[in-house]
């Protein structure tokens, strides 16, 4: 990879102890990986292995003790629009209409009101929420809220999207539908995506490569390339190769 979009380079993070007689908690012990432009990376690992901490460091919410994160060659020092995060809770702005949620990043950029409205509406159209611009998030169904969160991120035109288990709260039907939508959105918009998940089927269905972390303090156990055709479809879920990949990840996690 000659010109990676995102580089995570030897990242260490230890949480200082809350009370002084308790030991500090080392969480990340040297994480290395890189993501190419437009690559879909899934990060998985045992529970409590520090996946969310890793996302926080990449996003710039949390400073790492050692190592660095580079986006397009520039070191990350603070949160920024080039690495937008979607949380499991979605963290929609409940007090804003769907349109204002999507337009928020544009407002932060200083885009004028008329232009904001036009761009926001076009993103809403693209995630099939056209006509819902004046609704508040509480009026939308679970799947619509997911799509709204995605539209809000896409409108920020980030070079990387960081997804912290955004689908974990969904039932299995919704989840599969959203996985399909994610694949479509990703293919259409060529974003670099780093997504954390526990779900190995989801990992294989979505990823170009899966970064498997060890338990805490975690390092990269293996980076597994998923050599399925890039255009994933529903039927790829049942192919023997798909099952093999899932089994391989499972072996790695149990090791």
């Amino acid at each position: 990879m000659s010109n990676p979009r995102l580089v995570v380079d030897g990242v260490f993070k230890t949480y200082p102890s809350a009370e002084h007689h308790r030991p500090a908690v080392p969480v990340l012990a040297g994480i290395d990986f890189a993501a190419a432009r437009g690559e879909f990376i899934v990060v998985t690992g045992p529970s409590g292995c520090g996946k969310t901490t890793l996302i926080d460091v990449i996003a710039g919410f949390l400073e790492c003790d050692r190592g660095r994160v580079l986006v397009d060659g520039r070191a990350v020092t603070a949160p920024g629009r080039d690495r937008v995060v979607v949380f499991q809770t979605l963290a929609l702005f409940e007090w804003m209409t769907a349109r204002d949620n999507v337009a928020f990043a544009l407002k932060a950029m200083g885009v004028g009101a008329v232009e904001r409205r036009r761009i926001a509406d076009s993103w809403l159209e693209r995630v099939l929420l056209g006509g819902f611009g004046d609704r508040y998030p509480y009026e939308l169904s679970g799947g619509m809220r997911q799509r709204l969160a995605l539209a809000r991120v896409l409108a920020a035109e980030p070079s990387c999207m960081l997804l912290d288990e955004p689908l974990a709260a969904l039932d299995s039907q919704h989840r599969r539908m959203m996985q399909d939508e994610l694949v479509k959105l990703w293919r259409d918009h060529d974003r670099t995506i780093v997504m954390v998940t526990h779900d190995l089927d989801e990992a294989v269905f979505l990823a170009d490569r899966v970064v498997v972390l060890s338990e805490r303090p975690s390092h990269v156990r293996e980076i597994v390339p998923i050599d399925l055709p890039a255009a994933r479809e529903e039927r790829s879920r049942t192919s023997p190769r798909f099952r093999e990949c899932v089994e391989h990840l499972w072996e790695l996690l149990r090791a």
Partner: protein
Amino acid sequence: MIRRAWLPIALLAVWEIGARLGWINSTLLPPPSQIATALVDWARDGALVLDALASVGRVVAGFALAAILGISVGALVALLPVVRRNVVPVIELLRPIPPIAWIPMAILWFGIGTTSAVFIVCVGGFFPIVTATMHGIAHVRRETIQTARSLGAGQWLTVTHVVLPAALPDILSGVRTGLGSAWMSLIAAELVASQSGLGYRIQLSRLFLRSDSVVAGMLVIGLLGVAMSLGLRALERRLTIWNGATLGADAVLGGRPVEQPQAGR
């Protein structure tokens, strides 16, 4: 209507009959008819409106001041650790002092009259509002703020468009509590530190042993309090129309089904 209000109507009837038959000393507790007469007399010479206007004017002034101060101080305390460390101990120390305990100092500083009353109202309204604002902002979810920052929002946009609106339901419920407290403080202040207003009127009536006028005054105080509280509730609904969860309490009380937000907040 009559079927739902039978209990108060029956109580009023017993009260009236009891007073007329001499079972109840009508100086200590005048019958409803006498209270109604006092109310009508009070309204007829225009004094009722003047008294009510004096009181409502003071409560509006003092309460507006309390809301502005309470929300700004609460926001600064919640957002800036330096302010928090220095200001919270002072707030915690002053909060347990009942607003009426400030009356002697208010009279000393501002004399008897409107300024004192407005000051007492402000003290009464300030503490519930500042507390609710502090807690409301402190409880805004970390992820909500992080999302705003990650979408490129600076500090100012994050505070004005994300943190404050997210805390608004909590702030407004503090404002409602504050209004109740402000109204009670006002009447207390008017009892001793004023020459006009509803509190002054009932104090004056007591001196003339007009217990009917006292009760009439209490009635007006209660009704105005309810009216202001309902007005504020309506405003609250409008401002937090996005908060589908606010229907919850009404649903419990009114037996309507609870509407839940889809996920998170």
